[in-house]
């Protein structure tokens, strides 16, 4: 999946001469947390986050403050050397950038011009889509040896029962070396037949809830 498929194209921006008060207003009005600062060519020259604005704004405990603070230019508080991304970047890489740089927003740049914005929230939404419930379905998890053809074999068992697979992902088993866990959402209310099918194979269905004791008690 590419960045251009998950980014927002309607970006709220300001120029560096705009006032801090304008930025605060823009955040409130649109429920956003980041504002790219652009020049006449739509080049991103800085970025301002809600935290930058909070740092700049007077404390709520401060009864008498200098109104002029809010009239200062955005340019005076923006972060320059902005980390950006490209519309044809893969969305998985965005997660890595967020994680490594500890940031939550990336302006998307094409031909040096701002074309979109991706936030942590868009990222999370995409993950929800990947693992999520697009249509009514049951979730099953299967422990399989980490070898060639396993996914095909498992899918075959589900397909034979005329059950559609809604989503699938996999991760290495946290407890057994050399095993993977396959996670499927399958379009059926009756997983019993599938469970019985798997009992005849070497694949172990971890379904549905581990009944172990509470480790936090």
């Amino acid at each position, binding site marked *: 999946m590419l960045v251009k498929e998950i980014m927002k194209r309607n970006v709220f921006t300001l120029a560096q001469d705009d006032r801090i008060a304008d930025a605060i207003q823009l955040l409130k009005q649109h429920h956003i947390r980041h504002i790219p600062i652009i020049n006449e060519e739509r080049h991103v020259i800085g970025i301002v986050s809600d935290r930058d604005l909070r740092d700049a704004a007077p404390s709520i405990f401060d009864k008498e403050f200098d109104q002029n603070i809010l009239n200062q230019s955005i340019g005076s508080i923006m972060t320059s050397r902005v980390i950006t991304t490209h519309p044809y970047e893969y969305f998985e890489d965005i997660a890595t950038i967020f994680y490594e740089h500890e940031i939550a927003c990336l302006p998307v740049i094409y031909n040096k011009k701002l074309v979109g914005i991706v936030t942590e929230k868009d990222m999370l939404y995409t993950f929800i889509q990947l693992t999520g419930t697009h249509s009514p379905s*049951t*979730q099953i998890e299967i422990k399989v040896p980490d070898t060639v053809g396993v996914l095909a074999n498992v899918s075959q068992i589900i397909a034979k029962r005329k059950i559609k697979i809604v989503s699938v992902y996999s991760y290495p088993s946290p407890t057994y070396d050399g095993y993977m866990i396959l996670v499927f959402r399958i379009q059926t*209310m009756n997983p*019993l037949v599938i469970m019985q099918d798997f009992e005849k194979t070497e694949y172990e269905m971890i379904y549905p809830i581990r*009944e172990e004791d*509470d480790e936090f008690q």
Partner: protein
Amino acid sequence: MSFSKTAFVYSDQFLQYSFHENHPFNQKRILLTKDLLYTHDALSEDDIIEPDTISPTILELVHTKEYINVIKQASELSEIDNPEKYGIGTADTPAFKGMFHAAMSLVEGTIKACELVANHDVIHALNLGGGLHHGFPDRAAGFCIFNDIAIGIKYLQQNYNFKILYIDTDAHHGDGVQHLFYNDSNVCTVSFHETGRYLYPGTGKVNERGIKEGFGYSFNFPLDAFTEDDSYLDTFHQGMDEICEFFRPDIIISQHGVDSHFLDPLTHMHCTCRIFEEIPKKIHQLAHQYCQGKWVALGGGGYDIWRVVPRAWAQLWQILNNNEPFTGSINQEWHRLWQSKAPCPLPDSWSDPVSQYKSIPRRKEITDYNNEILEQVLKFTKIAKKSDSDGVKP
């Protein structure tokens, strides 16, 4: 025909709703329930009302013409273009001969039950053939072809000016009904179900609260797997009291899936028959407190058709009539009728024997979790109540 205060809506047609021999949805459970009631002298032929034949155009209150036609074709076992698009021919809802009329009869049952209650012919009515909450406008899902509940609610909206409260206690989320009234503030949908983390259909999260005018009129209680009776009933009682006070319904439609039982093969709620006594008692009380008794009770899921469903549904009918559940032993006459056909020993008593029940080690954790869910779900009704008492409009 002399009507008592309750009606048991039934037609032999309901039994035709059968996908195949090994399918978990098996209407034989209605026969088992009726016989259980007969042997306890709790049901007589006078109580039974046959639904009227009605025009299939009533389906269009909820379903698309295209989908209705597809079901008619599937019913004749004729070839359909892309059946999967309509959910037909899948493992859950395969086509079967006569499926249109079978599915239609369940709708007729629910319409009859709604009509009887709305017209004050009876105070409460029960249709164990209905309660197919997974049906969508253009596709079959989760063993459901037509959504009789939604059709019943639309029918009531069209003919009576009621605020309708829908209560769904099936172990699976009532997704089809919620979907159809998601933007409607005159229909309040409430679903108590096992969390969709693993279980079908996966929806029914706390944050599904409705949209537009309907925001705040969908309530979802996704309870943890292995919830057990006490936590279930705590959540149910507190949740329903609060929601009724907030919504003040004119009529209650309830779906009584009884698949939250620990013997049910498809779910993991791990409750006992006690909840199937307490749930109807609570709804009964609310129906009289808010709706002059107007209450339509419907069937739903329930996949241990020998040991669980007959007892649970017999108690439902008993509570509709007397408000007092059966206790003690099951009449052996019922065993004589059915034991030879059953693959397991039929139960001897109305309550579940302790020996069969294995309690859950994580009970405290699960109870805490469910309390947290309750708190979150009721966040907005609590705010509404507070601004009400402050004299401010919410």
